[in-house]
């Protein structure tokens, strides 16, 4: 069997299959369906310094081959995460990583500092790309100076693997990735959701309480692939690719475009066992094509 292990910063992943923040709860929600230790890692739900109630219902609408969400980072805050959630997830036998978000640079820094203390959290994913919060989030990730400011500040205080999650709602995502690299990020993950909207024609109203929301699912895959490809050409740090992956072939496509690892997001809702199926499918692909290691495939477009 081929070697599926890859490295992201100081992290060693047993395989490149990770689950995306906001689609996999804290991992615990999926233990009835799969063996969590079979995947390379889990990005748990976005965590902020202060508790957040999230946006009003309705927060979700189905779209062709995807969905829009406007959850708005509902979470109980960093203190609750450390006291109540961390003890339940720290012994899960895979890389448990936390997606960190905030409204101000100070919030991001305070959250990242606390994450240093947690032995079993080897990495954070800095979310500068959430489209569903009024302040912070995507505001930091859609221009180089905003991204630079928050990444620089967090890099100063956070000593483990720092991954920066990028927004696709920009003209040139490679520039933002280069900024992340210059400020010391160990890796970038892309893409977060695409800003979208749904309208109920019968009621002549927007469907979501927030009017706009983040689009995800197979419909965004071509956009995500293109952005991973462009970013791969622009930076040397590893890329974690995500956006609409729903099977092993999709995952292989992202790796060929330049991703070192991939995240599965929305499709976890359709098939809660999908991530282990993708691990198996990557094995099968590598064996069938005679590759010894998945690393041979990274950016290996002919």
């Amino acid at each position, binding site marked *: 069997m081929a070697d599926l292990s890859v490295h992201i910063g100081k992290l060693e992943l047993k395989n490149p299959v990770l689950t995306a923040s*906001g*689609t*996999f*709860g804290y991992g615990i*929600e*999926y233990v*009835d*369906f799969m063996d969590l230790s079979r995947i390379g890692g889990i990005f748990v*739900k976005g965590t902020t310094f202060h508790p957040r*109630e*999230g946006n009003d*219902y*309705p*927060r*979700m*609408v*189905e*779209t*062709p*081959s*995807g*969905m829009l*969400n406007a*959850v708005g980072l*509902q979470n109980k805050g960093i203190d609750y995460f450390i006291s109540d959630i961390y003890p339940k997830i720290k012994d899960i036998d895979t890389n448990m990583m936390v997606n960190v978000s905030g409204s101000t640079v100070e919030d991001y820094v305070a959250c990242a500092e606390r994450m240093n203390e947690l032995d079993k959290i080897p990495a954070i994913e800095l979310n500068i790309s959430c489209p569903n919060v009024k302040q912070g989030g995507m505001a930091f990730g859609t221009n180089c100076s905003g991204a630079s400011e928050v990444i620089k500040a967090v890099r100063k205080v956070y000593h483990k693997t720092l991954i920066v999650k990028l927004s696709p709602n920009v003209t040139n995502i490679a520039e933002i990735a280069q900024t992340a690299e210059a400020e010391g990020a160990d890796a970038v993950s892309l893409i977060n959701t695409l800003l979208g909207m749904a309208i109920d024609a019968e009621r002549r109203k927007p469907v979501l309480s927030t009017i706009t929301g983040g689009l995800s*699912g*197979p419909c965004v895959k071509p956009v995500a692939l293109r952005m991973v490809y462009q970013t791969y050409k622009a930076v040397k740090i590893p890329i974690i690719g995500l956006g609409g992956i729903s099977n092993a072939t999709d995952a292989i496509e992202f790796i060929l475009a330049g991703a070192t690892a991939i995240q599965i997001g*929305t499709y*976890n*809702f*359709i*098939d*809660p*066992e999908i991530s282990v199926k993708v691990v198996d499918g990557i094995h099968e692909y590598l064996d069938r094509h005679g590759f010894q290691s998945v690393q041979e495939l990274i950016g290996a477009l002919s």
Partner: protein
Amino acid sequence: MKKQIANWIVKDNIPLNEKHCLLKLTLEESLPEILPGQFVQVKVDNSESVFLRRPISVHQVDRKNQELWLLIQIVGDGTFQLSHLIPGDSLNLIYPLGNGFSIPAGSDKDKKLLLIGGGVGSAPLLYLGAYLKEKGFTPTFLLGARSERDLLQLDEFRKLGTVHITTENGGLGEKGYVVNHSSLLEGDADFIYACGPNLMMLSVARYAKEYAIPCEVSLENRMACGIGACLCCVEKTVKGNVCVCTEGPVFNINQLKWQI
């Protein structure tokens, strides 16, 4: 309760009227534990517009015949595809999901339990009624619909207890809404379970509060995952925003932030 994912086999698909059908599903192994009020997440194949699973409440669990019943209302293409399944087809389900209705403690079998359903919202009340009857209680049903054609599975409900009916057009039972039914005038129910359109449940909740009758309602907020991961189906409660798929779908009305 451990959640599972499996392919069930369609045993029967019975059209009830032009908008509704009854799916009877079976498994080769023995049926899992399922509580009244719980639901399943159904994967819809063969539809170009359907992406997410469809949450459907459990209508009946017939252990003797090894059947799980789902009452389907054809609303969009997902439920349209479900209505075209034929015996032998397979259907992928995640189950059992959600909390289920409260079952009264066993001692007082004379408790007056009133099960109020509106339209296709009556679906989970059949299994609840059967479950209560099996425990020795005598459920009473109050079912409302737009017209007599929209009343579903009346024969099945009548096997379990007294069935009161209201229709908006007066075609069967008393004319009006469920909360206008004459049997409610005494306000002497000991517990009310309700499922139906939100406005109906709100009216029932107001009635229950007026007469200080404990009351549970089953919500059907729009869901993506059904297992508490996506935080899309939230309802405002005294505990803040909670997922209807895991903390519900059944809520005591005292937990909700409704204007009751």
